[in-house]
């Protein structure tokens, strides 16, 4: 992202002789942020499409969906909601600390985020393994014997929470990469766009859960 060679900005002058800066694509903070926001839009379209499918079947199979929602573990789901909330806070604080020049504290907050994300995944793992243990997973004989709406509810449940979980795993990977960049001095208190974008990504992951949680766990 940074290019040491272009330290002097390129200036062009209009007819009146006013200077205008040529933006250097190698070091364009606003551009990097805009690019990442566009990426976030694609993610919103992906999850939005899944919610579209969810809504489509919720309309057709409301009783089945309500009954199936009853079977999910709200305590674990609720705990996970709070964990993500906390992790979004710690991610944000790490950015604040970095920009105030407190590199070590910033790293500490990233570590806290990573730990919280891992706890989220562990809880998710227990939730899933419980459901798989009682025979509820796509294509299982138990599930196939149930009503169509129930099959669709769990099909969507595993797809959407699975996709969300995948995003958390990727997020953890990105955070380790960010830590490495901080250690090697590539991210500094003035050149922080990578960490800022990581924080944006993490907020997106949180944002998706804000909708996933009530729609799956609380519609009964």
């Amino acid at each position, binding site marked *: 992202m940074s290019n040491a060679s272009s330290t002097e900005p390129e200036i062009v002058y209009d007819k009146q002789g006013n200077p205008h*800066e040529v933006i250097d694509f190698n070091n364009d903070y606003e551009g990097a942020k805009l690019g990442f926001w566009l990426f976030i839009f694609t993610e919103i379209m992906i999850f939005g499409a899944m919610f579209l499918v969810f809504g489509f079947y919720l309309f057709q199979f409301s009783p089945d969906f309500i009954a199936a929602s009853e079977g999910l573990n709200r305590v674990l789901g609720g705990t996970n909601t709070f964990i993500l909330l906390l992790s979004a806070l710690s991610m944000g604080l790490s950015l604040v600390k970095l920009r105030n020049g407190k590199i070590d504290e910033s790293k500490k907050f990233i570590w806290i985020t990573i730990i919280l994300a891992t706890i989220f995944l562990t809880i998710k793992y227990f939730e899933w393994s419980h459901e798989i243990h009682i025979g509820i997973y796509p294509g299982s004989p138990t599930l196939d014997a149930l009503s169509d709406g129930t099959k669709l509810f769990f099909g969507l449940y595993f797809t959407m929470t699975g996709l969300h979980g995948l995003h958390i795993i990727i997020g953890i990977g990105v955070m380790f990469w960010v830590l490495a960049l901080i250690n090697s001095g590539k991210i500094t208190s003035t050149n922080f766009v990578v960490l800022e974008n990581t924080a944006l990504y993490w907020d997106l992951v949180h944002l998706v859960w804000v909708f996933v949680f009530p729609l799956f766990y609380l519609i009964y």
Partner: protein
Amino acid sequence: MSNVHKSFYDETHTVFGHHKNKILQWIFSIDHKRIALLYLFVMFAFFAVAVSTALVMRLELFSPGQDFIDPDTYNQAFTLHGVIMIFLFIIPGIPAVLGNFLLPLQLGARDVSFPKINLLSWWLYMLGALLAVTSLFIGDGFADTGWTFYAPYSIKTDTNVIWALSAAFILGFASILTGINFVVTIHRLRAPGMGFFKMPLFVWSLYATSWIQILATPVVGISLIMVILERTFGIGIFDPTKGGDPVLLEHMFWIYSHPAVYLMILPAFGIASEIVPTFCRKPIFGYHAIAISSAMIAGVGYLVWGHHMYTSGESEMIKLIFSALTFFVAVPTGVKFFDWIATMYKASIDFKTPMLWTVGTFITFIIGGLTGLIVASVGVDIYLHDTYFVVAHFHYAILGGVVFLMFAGMHYWFPKITGKMYNEKHAARAFYTIFIGFNLLWFPMFIAGMLGMPRRYFDYLPEFEIWHKLATIGSWVFALGLIYMFYTLYRGWRYGELAGPNPWNATTLEWQIPSPPQLPNFGEIPYVDYMPYEYKNGEPVRHLDLSVKEDKPHE
């Protein structure tokens, strides 16, 4: 011409710094011009493959009954043809080749915003292409679902649907990255002074295109993933035996794939908007109208997907809504055509090959567009849906619109890209051959479709024979024309005369630098406070020399 500074063919920078090895210099180059050429060669290789499959299909259909391939092979052939043409050729076509090459040049930028991601797009594109090709040779062969991957057939069939779906997904991802790159480039890297309404119209069309890529592609991406999950885990979302609704997949597929056809045609319109003023020797008529109509087509084009599904069982209410919206898209499209034709008024038209291609395309695309209106009308479409009429309409719009304008652009920017000139006489003859072959190939299909010949048929009832025979003969003429054209371009590239920086006397920034361009594109970046197409008495108002001078090396 590049006696001052070497061209981008001679030097480059790669993602790893500098390499001695020529091949590595190309495939790891982060220079937007080299990436454009990488796309170009791979794309035309796949174009050749897809044209060949089409020729095989047409040959099989020459007479009724089974001649030399069996129905399953035929089904795989049209799927292969569709997947390659749509996902590997037309969708990336103009944006990834001409867009990549020209966008920074027309904006006055030194590269796109994210050169490394640009290279990543190409690698993803290659990965997707590789997956598609690999699936030809393993197991039960290439998918036989048609490029639409409708469930439940795509869930039931034994062929390598997962491979094709993964390929399409990865190609979609590559296309998203290109789109993001372009939008950021257009927002951030315009030359100082160049406001949005001072950009060349090709850039405007790429801007609209990129938004479609960003906002529509993810929807089809996730739908394809759900079909993959359906096949591997049986999640049931599109499987009727588990309560799923196949029509939902049709919705989600077309939410992307209809905007995708605007994604294909918009950059092509952009090319026309460049060529028409250059060869009319005057400013384009209605610059603002053309620019805004691109955005309108992109916006409204997003909301018309349901017209692919009039017979699928969607509700009557939504059929009428989609029909009305579809007609509405025709208005901005019409405005563009009227503007182009108005540009010809009181002009001094120079019939060079790019202009020939553009005028030819106006004819074929107007046919494609007007037949689009015919099938947009609900009651009429119910009769014509899934017949050869739709096949012909689609090819008139996409082949006769997008690909022809792509060829026009290839001829127009050929001297810029290669620094050489092709033979004008042969290029014009190649155009006439292709134009005749094209109409002979596709026009009979309108009639066959009107008479009720359904599409994707391996065999047909005997009374359609005459139309199939005509089309097959047309396909041979068309193929010969293609060979002629590519050979002319190849001769031009190898043996053509040097073209000079501005052979057409055009006005946009890419013509103010040497051909082929130098690695950093511009020596000094101009302050652009004027409109892109300013002519006076048929001559450009400004002649600039923006080449990189020896004494002022950049980077």
